[in-house]
């Protein structure tokens, strides 16, 4: 399961980086479809860690350690960032027709929202990885597990 999580996380990172510049990798069509798919991957990532989310949510104000609270707040911010990114992406989509969703607002507003939320979310992803670096080290066996 851990290997699957690791592969999923690496895939998420690669796709996220490719999505940061719509012109970098096969244009806007790839950007929009991959943006939608990454949303599903993100939900899968959350689902795989559901037991941790449940545990911390229940004990957030009572007995959670500071570290778990920090991770939890960061995860909530990441979730908000992803939602804003996908929502604004849907609003400004050009190769997939989402006009039926009628999200309203000006194109400029959604564009600025899309850029800002994606940049902030990328920074949050970096911090998230930094806080989980030990887990990554263990998965890649950079560090020997204490027996």
């Amino acid at each position, binding site marked *: 399961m851990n290997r699957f999580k690791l592969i999923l996380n690496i895939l998420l990172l690669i796709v996220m980086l490719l999505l940061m510049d719509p012109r970098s990798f*096969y244009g806007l069509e790839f950007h929009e479809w991959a943006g939608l798919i990454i949303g599903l991957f993100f939900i899968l990532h959350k689902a795989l860690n559901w037991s941790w989310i449940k545990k911390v949510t229940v004990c957030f104000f009572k007995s959670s350690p500071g570290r778990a609270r920090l991770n939890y707040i960061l995860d909530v911010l990441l979730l908000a960032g992803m939602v804003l990114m996908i929502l604004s992406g849907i609003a400004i989509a*050009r190769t997939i027709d989402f006009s039926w969703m009628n999200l309203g607002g000006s194109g*400029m507003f959604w564009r600025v929202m899309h850029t800002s939320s994606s940049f902030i979310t990328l920074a949050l*992803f970096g911090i998230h*990885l*930094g806080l989980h670096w030990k887990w990554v080290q263990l998965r890649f066996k950079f560090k020997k597990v204490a027996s």
Partner: protein
Amino acid sequence: MNRKIINGIISLAIVIAALYGLSRLRFIERSIWIFKTNDMQNARRGGFERGGRGGRDFRARPQDFGGRERQSFENLPDSVRQRLIAERGARVENDSLRQSRAQTVTRERGDFRGRGQGRDFRRGQSVRLVNVGWFFIVFAGFTVVTIYTDMLTKWVKSRKNNKSD
């Protein structure tokens, strides 16, 4: 010990490169665009839709592509505009040609042509990963800074605990 020194040097290099990447991508400025709603016109000029080559599209160059200047430039007669473009060494393209090409590209790609009416935003069919590389370095910079901040926090905590014992 050697390994620690090598790790430290690599981390420092990543952080320095990330700082350069932050300014190159105008990362901070573009991250807070949403909080500066009054400044949206500027945001448009610096955005992805302006196009460009090899990472330069992230830098605002109002003297070349700025809003008002560009509009008045497009209103010039073709002959004058071509002469100006030739002087600047840029690509020459008249309105009719640009329009027909945008339509052809749109049709070829099967776009729905809804909002935006086929505005030419579809450049970038090839793989050009320069900017992706810079985003990766910035991302790695955030990760490295977090790892070392975390280590520092733990070290301070353990020192405090030792003192209290």
